[in-house]
C-alpha cells in the first residue's frame, strides 16, 4: 500500500522516493506554502505544527515547531533554503532541536512529471552514528513511557528531514 521507497546509498545518504497523484507544480507548492505545509508535515497522529514560518527563496529561512496534542512536549527544526527551482527542485539545510541541536542535514528534493502525477526523489545526508543514537534515546531519562513519546517526536522531525519541505 505504501508507495514510499527508502534506501541507503553508501553509508552517508538515504534516498526516498514517493509518487503523488498531482502535478509537480502542486507538489512543489505544497512543500513551500506554510499554510499547506502545516497541514501535512506532521508525522504520526497526535502532532500539530503551531509554528510554520517559511521564507521560500534562496537564502530564506524556515522554522517549524511541533507540539503533541496531549503530551506537553514539542520540538523544532530550523533551516535555510539553498536553491529553489520552481516545480522541480528544493535544496535546503536543516537541524533539529531535541532540545539539543543536531548537526546540519543537507537535503535535496526533486519533483519530476510521472504519468499524470509526480515522482518525488529526496536525497538526504545521514546524521552520524552518535547523532542517531542521541536521537533514538532522546528523553529516555524520563522513563520508558516518555521515551516512546519522544521517539514519536523524532519521527516527524526525521520525516521533516527528508520531507525536505
Amino acid at each position: 500500500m505504501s508507495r514510499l521507497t527508502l534506501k541507503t546509498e553508501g553509508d552517508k545518504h538515504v534516498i526516498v522516493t514517493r509518487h503523488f497523484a498531482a502535478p509537480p507544480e502542486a507538489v512543489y507548492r505544497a512543500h513551500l506554502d506554510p499554510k499547506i505545509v502545516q497541514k501535512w508535515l506532521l508525522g504520526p497522529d497526535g502532532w500539530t505544527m503551531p509554528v510554520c514560518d517559511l521564507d521560500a527563496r534562496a537564502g530564506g529561512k524556515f522554522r517549524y515547531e511541533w507540539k503533541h496534542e496531549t503530551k506537553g512536549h514539542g520540538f523544532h527544526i530550523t533551516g535555510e533554503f539553498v536553491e529553489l527551482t520552481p516545480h522541480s527542485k528544493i535544496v535546503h539545510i536543516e537541524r533539529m532541536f531535541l532540545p539539543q541541536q543536531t548537526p546540519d542535514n543537507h537535503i535535496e528534493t526533486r519533483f519530476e512529471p510521472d504519468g499524470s502525477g509526480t515522482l518525488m526523489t529526496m536525497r538526504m545526508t545521514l546524521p552520524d552514528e552518535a547523532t542517531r543514537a542521541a536521537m533514538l534515546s532522546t528523553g529516555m531519562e524520563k522513563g520508558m513511557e516518555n521515551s516512546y513519546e519522544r521517539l514519536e517526536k523524532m519521527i516527524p522531525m526525521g520525516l521533516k528531514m527528508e520531507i525536505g519541505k
Partner: protein
Amino acid sequence: MSVNVDAVFLAMADPTRRAILARLAKGEATVMELAEPFAMTQPAVSQHLKVLEGAGLVVSRVDGARRPRRLAPAGIDAMEQWLAMLRRGMEKSYDRLDEVLASMEEPKKRKGRKA
C-alpha cells in the same frame, strides 16, 4: 532479529553508554581502553558494558587474556531502527499530503492568491 527494544532504549538512555557505543562503532576495544577516555574506573565501565551486552548491543570475544568488546549486529541495527522510524513518519505525512493535494485540485483557479 531478536532485539529487545525496551532494553535497547534503556541501554542507550545513558550518555556514557552512548559514548561507549560510538567508540565501539569505530572498532573493538577492551575495558581498559574504554575506561581511559571516559576517566572512569574499569568496574564502572564493566557495569555499563553489562547493560549494553544485556540489550544485545555489544558482544565480547576471548583473545588470550584480553576480552575485547565490539558492537553486536543488533547494535549496528540501531541504524535500521532509525530508518524505520523515519519511514514511518514520512509515510504518515505523505498520506496526509495526498489528501491535501486532492483538495488543492478543485480550487486551483484561485492559486494566484497569496496568504
